[in-house]
Each structure stands twice: as C-alpha cells, then as structure tokens.
C-alpha cells in the first residue's frame, strides 16, 4: 500500500477507512458520554423536586409524540438524500436535504413552542429541580439539532452552487451520521423523560 501525499480525499489509510468517517464515529461515541451525563442527572432528580409544576402537570404526550414522528421522518429523508447523491441524482438529493432541514426546523420550532407553553404554566428554567434538569437536557439536544440544521443548510448552499456532486457523498454521509445520532438521543429522551411516568411527590 503506497501513500502519496496528495489531496486528502484520496489518501489511502492504514485501515482503508476514510479519516473523516472514523473521526465522526469517534466524536459520536464521545457525545454518548455527554448525553449520558445529562440524562442520568435527570433520572437522578426524578421525583426530587421540592415544588411544582411537576412533569405530569405540564407534559403533553400527544404533542411531543408528533415531534418524535417529525424527527424520525427527518432521519428517513436524510438517508434518502445520501442514497440519492450516491446514485448520482443531485437534484433528488437536494430535495431530500431540504426536507430534512425543514423537518429539523419543525422539530426545533415545536420545542420552542413547548417551552413557551411550559413557561406560561409557570415552569421556567429555575423553578425547580425538574425544570433545571429538563430544560438543560432538552436544550443541549435542541442545540445539537440546531447545529445540524446549520450543517444541512450549508450542504444545501453547496448543492445549489453546484459543488455537492456524488464525489462529495462522504461529506453528506458525515452530516447524516450526526443527524441520526441526534435522532437516537431523542429516542432515549422521549422514552426516559416523557413516557416513563414520574409520580408527583406526595
């Protein structure tokens, strides 16, 4: 195996795997620790709030489940965008990328609306332990989504200026991995925070 010090995209590597994909998986692995810490903070403090409102008082499960569907759908559109680009169908890839970004924005918009509703119901950041751990956890997740949307819009920008052809599929794959990760974190959050019941303190 020879190594030629040329453009990095075509550098042969020791494992045969591209640097950027290896890097992204390693980064996502480390991000598991990040969300692990936040989620376990929430789980630790479940039921420990001294004052309300409590989760049962504010959660709207049907509403949030729509958010879940939206994010799951965005994972589908993301992978379809990648598949289209790998097939060489740049036009299709653009459509699916746009769809992913829009679904992502819908999700974030939904979160913002949800938080605003909670705030009207007297649950703000510092109200109690529940609000503290809830807002920071979902806020971190939402920020991850927002960064993902920024990356998607950047990809779209490249695509519209003709610079996102099939040879750039790897880059789209990277953004895709990040996006799906954000989705699987939400799968955990939806179950652990919203669906698993927290009894209100007596």
């Amino acid at each position, binding site marked *: 195996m020879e190594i030629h010090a040329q453009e990095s995209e075509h550098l042969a590597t020791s494992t045969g795997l591209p640097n950027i994909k290896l890097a992204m998986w390693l980064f996502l692995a480390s991000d598991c*620790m990040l969300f692990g810490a936040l989620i376990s903070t929430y789980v630790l403090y479940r039921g420990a709030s001294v004052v309300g409102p409590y989760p049962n008082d504010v959660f709207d499960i049907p509403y949030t489940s729509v958010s879940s569907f939206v994010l799951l759908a965005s994972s589908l559109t993301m992978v379809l965008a990648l598949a289209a680009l790998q097939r060489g169908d740049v036009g299709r890839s653009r459509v699916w990328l746009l769809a992913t970004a829009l679904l992502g924005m819908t999700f974030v918009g939904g979160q913002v609306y949800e938080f605003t509703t909670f705030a009207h119901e007297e649950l703000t950041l510092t109200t109690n332990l529940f609000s503290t751990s809830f807002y920071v956890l979902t806020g971190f997740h939402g920020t991850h989504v927002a960064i993902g949307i920024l990356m998607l819009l950047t990809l779209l920008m490249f695509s519209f200026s003709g610079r996102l052809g099939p040879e750039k599929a790897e880059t789209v794959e990277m953004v895709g991995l990040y996006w799906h990760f954000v989705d699987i974190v939400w799968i955990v959050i939806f179950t652990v925070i919203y669906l698993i019941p927290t009894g209100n303190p007596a």
Partner: protein
Amino acid sequence: MSEAERSTGLAPQAEAATGSHQGSGHVARHPSPKEYVRIAIILAIITAAEVAIYYIEAIEGLLIPLLFLFALVKFALVVLWFMHLKFDSRTYARFFMMGLAGAITLFLIVLLTFRVFAR
C-alpha cells in the same frame, strides 16, 4: 449505472475513497430507498405503540419494560440501518460501542450509588 455503482451504490471515486472493498473484505451493501422507507414505517409504528401503551392502564406494570424494549429497537434500527453500521467496517461499531457501553455502565453505577432504583 455501472456495475460498481450498482453493487455498492457509490460512484467509483467515492468507492475508492471509502475503501469499501479493502481491509476487512466486507462488500459494503447499501439498502435501497424502499428498504429505508420500510424501516421508517416500522419506527413510526413503534412510536405509535409507545404512545398507545402509555395510555393503557391495564398493563401499567409492563409499561416501563415495554417502553425500554421499544426504545432499544428503535435505537438499533436507526443505528444499524440509517447509520449504516450493519454494513460498514466493524471498527466504527467498536468505537461507538466504547462510548455507548461506557456511558451506560458508568452512569448506571453512579445512579446505583444514589440508590435511585431503590426509591
């Protein structure tokens, strides 16, 4: 579409760059768009089921184990198919598992020391 593209779904240069035929000898297979849609439908159905059992009082005792099972299945589906880990080099999976298994183990221990599960 060329033979190479049809088998791997990748244009030749991209294929070379990702080295899908090197190293471990795995031939990277890509699910078709139809397969992806099928996975997405399964995900949607499971999500609907999750919400449904949330409201069914009759199985309240089973709620938490079922919810965990559903979440696990959804997690696995997205990671294995959408993130392509089922078809990719084991190396990626090893690194991801380090982080995932590490996080689960370490934080379970932390929660155990707080006796969270004994409450």
